[in-house]
């Protein structure tokens, strides 16, 4: 048995349906295949003697420019004859030419053909000729050819003998021209017919199964062809949330720079969040407009912090041993024990310094979810993330702080240049704001930083300078994704999330 492909089977079936033979260009159309696919199939089939390809020479006929004119107005002999008939059946050639507005040069052609076609007789009258029309002058073969060529081309070989001769006469008269061409026709052989018939009887299946592959059944069945260029249903891959992906990138950069990640609770005591950071207890940033307090439970025991509470209290009241005057008010342990939602990542830096695992020298960071009692709008979130961290070593100084900020600006924000401005935080002195410049984005505030006050570090038992920094990563993310509304960070718009590109 000859093995044939899907396309070959389809060509055979099309040939059978078309009565055994068809021009190759018709095959492509009828079989619904590309021209190239049909040409390949026909080549294979003819090598297997399932089809025969015949090339026939054909003569294609068409009108010349002159022929097109006469096809529209009639042949010169017909024009003159009609003129004669209209004027009594007998008329001089000069008069006939004059009335018909036919050019002089067609006079002899017209009289020649009138006489040859026996449409009338020509008599001599002095220097002029007189035409006498016969009553009968039917449409002749030449006129039929012209009429048919007006709308189509004709193949000489396909015409009946009389028309063939008429066409040749017209060719001689330069009214019709001919062009040779090769027509490829495909004809099915008997062998082809029998294979094509059995192929057509084979069942068509749409999906290929494992069983079919194992058993070889796939070769016997006919697999339905798919339209590979048409659309298919959309798939939505699982992906990271775009903002969380960005935070992961920031984490990787910081780890690469030698920072250890710290984590800590969202619910804090005012003690850790504020008091340990030397924020006086009546500081405006501790009011209910700036800090979320818990209703129930509202307080936590500070027992686990032991004597640290005393040291912090004394530092607030009179500076303790830090060399500071302190804030000079009566510290309230009750206020310190209030439960709040972490309002800044710096609370985590306090926890890091309190940790028994603290290493000096050390570099630490955290991406901390923080809370502030703001109404949600274009520029405010009530929950947001801060990237914060500390660097501890006996030899650290202000240029080191600037060095860290410069590194962050370049590594994390891709900044071209940086500059620094004095800043203020209750827990750092000196305090520095980082401004980063990026081509196409301009200057932006990218971070706040400083050296922790001795009033912060010494009660915690840390005796070395501690550089503290925070980065404006939310703004950086918004800038990089061209986001105008900060609420987009926590968006629940699944369509937008799905549409975000990865990378």
């Amino acid at each position, binding site marked *: 048995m000859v093995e044939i492909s899907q396309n070959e089977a389809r060509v055979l079936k099309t040939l059978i349906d078309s009565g055994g033979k068809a021009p190759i260009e018709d095959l492509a159309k009828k079989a619904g295949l590309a021209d190239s696919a049909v040409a390949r199939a026909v080549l294979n089939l003819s090598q297997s003697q399932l089809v025969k390809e015949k090339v026939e020479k054909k003569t294609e006929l068409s009108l010349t420019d002159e022929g097109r004119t006469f096809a529209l107005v009639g042949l010169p002999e017909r024009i003159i004859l009609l003129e004669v008939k209209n004027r009594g059946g007998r008329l001089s050639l000069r008069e006939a030419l004059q009335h018909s507005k036919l050019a002089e040069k067609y006079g002899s052609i017209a009289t020649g053909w009138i006489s040859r076609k026996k449409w009338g007789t020509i008599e001599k009258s002095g220097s002029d000729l007189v035409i006498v029309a016969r009553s009968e002058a039917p449409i002749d073969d030449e006129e039929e050819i012209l009429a048919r060529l007006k709308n189509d081309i004709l193949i000489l070989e396909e015409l009946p003998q009389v028309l063939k001769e008429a066409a040749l006469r017209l060719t001689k008269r330069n009214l019709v021209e001919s062009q040779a061409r090769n027509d490829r026709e495909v004809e099915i052989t008997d062998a082809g017919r029998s294979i094509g018939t059995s192929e057509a009887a084979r069942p068509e299946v749409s999906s290929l199964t494992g069983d079919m592959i194992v058993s070889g059944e796939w070769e016997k069945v006919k697999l339905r062809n798919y339209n590979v260029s048409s659309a298919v249903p959309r798939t939505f*891959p*699982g*992906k990271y*949330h775009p*903002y969380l992906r960005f935070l992961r990138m920031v984490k990787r950069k*910081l*780890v690469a*720079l*030698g*920072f250890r*990640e710290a*984590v800590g*609770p*969202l*619910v804090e005591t005012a003690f850790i969040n504020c008091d340990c950071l030397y924020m006086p207890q*009546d500081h*405006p940033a501790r009011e*209910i407009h700036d800090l979320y*307090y*818990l*209703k*129930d*439970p509202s307080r*936590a*025991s500070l*027992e*686990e912090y032991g004597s640290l509470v005393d040291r912090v209290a004394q530092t607030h009241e009179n500076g303790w041993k830090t060399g*500071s*005057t*302190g804030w000079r008010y009566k510290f309230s342990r009750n206020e310190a024990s209030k439960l709040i*939602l972490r309002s800044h990542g710096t609370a985590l830096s306090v926890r890091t310094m309190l940790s028994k695992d603290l290493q000096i020298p*050390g570099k630490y960071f955290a991406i901390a*979810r923080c809370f502030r009692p*703001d*109404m*949600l709008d274009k520029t405010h979130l*009530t929950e947001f993330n801060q990237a914060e961290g500390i*660097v501890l070593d006996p030899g*650290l*100084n202000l240029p*080191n702080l*600037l*060095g*860290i900020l*410069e*590194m962050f600006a370049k590594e994390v924000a891709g900044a071209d240049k*940086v500059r*620094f*401005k*004095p800043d*203020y935080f209750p827990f750092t*002195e*000196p305090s520095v704001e980082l401004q980063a410049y990026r081509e196409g984005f301009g200057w932006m505030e990218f971070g706040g930083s400083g050296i922790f006050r001795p*009033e912060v570090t010494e009660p915690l038992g840390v005796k070395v300078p501690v550089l503290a920094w925070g980065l404006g990563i939310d703004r950086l993310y918004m800038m990089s994704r061209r986001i105008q509304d900060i609420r987009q960070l*926590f968006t*629940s*718009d*699944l369509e937008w*999330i*799905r549409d975000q590109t990865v990378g």
Partner: protein
Amino acid sequence: MPRDKEGLNEIFAFVKGDVESLEGDIVSIEVKDSNRPDIWAVEGIARALRGYLGGGRTKEVRVLGRSNLKVVIDKRVKPIRPFISTAIVKGLRPTDEALKSWINLQEKLDQTYGRKRKRASIGFYQADLIQSPLSYTVANPDIITFTPLGSEKKQSLREIVESHPKGAEYGEIISQFESWPILVDGADNVLSLPPVINSNDLGRITTETKNTLVEVTGTNSETVHNTLKIVVSTLAERGGKIYTCLETYPYGSPRILVSPNLSPTRASIRLSYINSLLGTSLTFKEASRFAERAGYGVRRATGDTIQLEIPGYRTDIMHSVDIIEDIAIAMDINELKPEWPRIWTGGNFAKETDETESVAEIMVGLGFQEVLTYALTSPAVVSNKVQQSDGKLVELLNPRMITHTVLRRWLLPSLLEVLSHNTHVDYPQRIFEIGPCISRGENQIHPIQESRKLAAVTVHANAGFTEIRSSFDALAESKGRSFQIKETEHPSFLSGRCGVILSDGEEVGIIGELNPRAIKSWGLNLPAAAFEVEMSNLSLT
């Protein structure tokens, strides 16, 4: 001075100011230093900039002499508002602009440094209309009357507190007391009802006022005295001459006070400390020059120590680091060369991050989209809509939005809220989140219990238990953990299609097909199945 925003920004950096707008001749700046009230008015900013830009010492602000005004304090003010400090500033006919600046300063000091007038509040009066001695005393709120600022008729103190706009704002500071503090002069004219309102007759200064009485009352002695120092120093910048008043107290110590005391405070600071903190190698001379630019007086330098004088209006200096920062600013911190600290440390991720990453990788591989939702939510979201009501939630004392009043104790409701916003989006929808959850702790020592959880939901026409269970099993197997699923009843899930997730017999999560009532309450119209599990149980410890 430069005329462009960039140039002005560089100048105002010396006073931690950000230029917010520049329109014609008007520059608006935000001063970030919330601890330096001496630069909260244009006069103070000008004084500070003069030092930084002029390169020399700033002019000392000092007292010119004693006024004749005496203030006698009644012991009955002690439990209400025990402290008062007064001064007279002479020789000023303020311009409209100056008046505006002082009113602004008064407002800022009252609001922040004076803690909304509780700790300290300021009053300005026409000194020439006032007769010594002043009496700071108390009065029956229903008997004593005067005409409050901005009004034309006399009212009792109580009427003023009840009807005047300032009464509504600050009345509560004194309204709890039986008698209220008042300030009366030698001719029995009422100057004011501190801290609420001044008299319209005496307590209104205009461009015609040559001599101004400044008075501060409050509950904190230091704040009261500092506030007065800052106000009179500001007025002195316009050419005012400061004269002291004598205050006599029946309590505390000392009992007789001359205020304001603008004499500088002495401080000594080690040069080696300055240089080690700033990474510099300044000489005594250089350090002294920068300190003077920052407004400090330099007395002498001996050994490693510089003796400095802190101007009276600098109420913010608590530690040497405050002075060192001022020296750094005077040097211009952009002149310091940034230097990456040369210490070697190995970076690493927190254990929790490693756990999150491995679980997120598997969930993403299973075709779930990661989402991010708020930890703050509402009881409607976290309980009602999911048909669950047991257990008290951790609640905020001061919520700002009714949609953010409690902390979530589980994630699934947040995920359903996300899905409810996306009913027009192509299904299937499969989402997950790894996030913090908060519930009440078992005791006083640990009143709060925080944990990280993972929740995942699948919603589509054919979503069901088998799909979600096989996703969960794939996760558990990939993490090398084994769990048991035992049938359970849960109001958010369909009875008979819900199981509790057990790890060594301990309940660590829930899995099942969602109850159609819960689905409907979120406006969803398709079957949904979900699981939620404690993150700590997904990793081998």
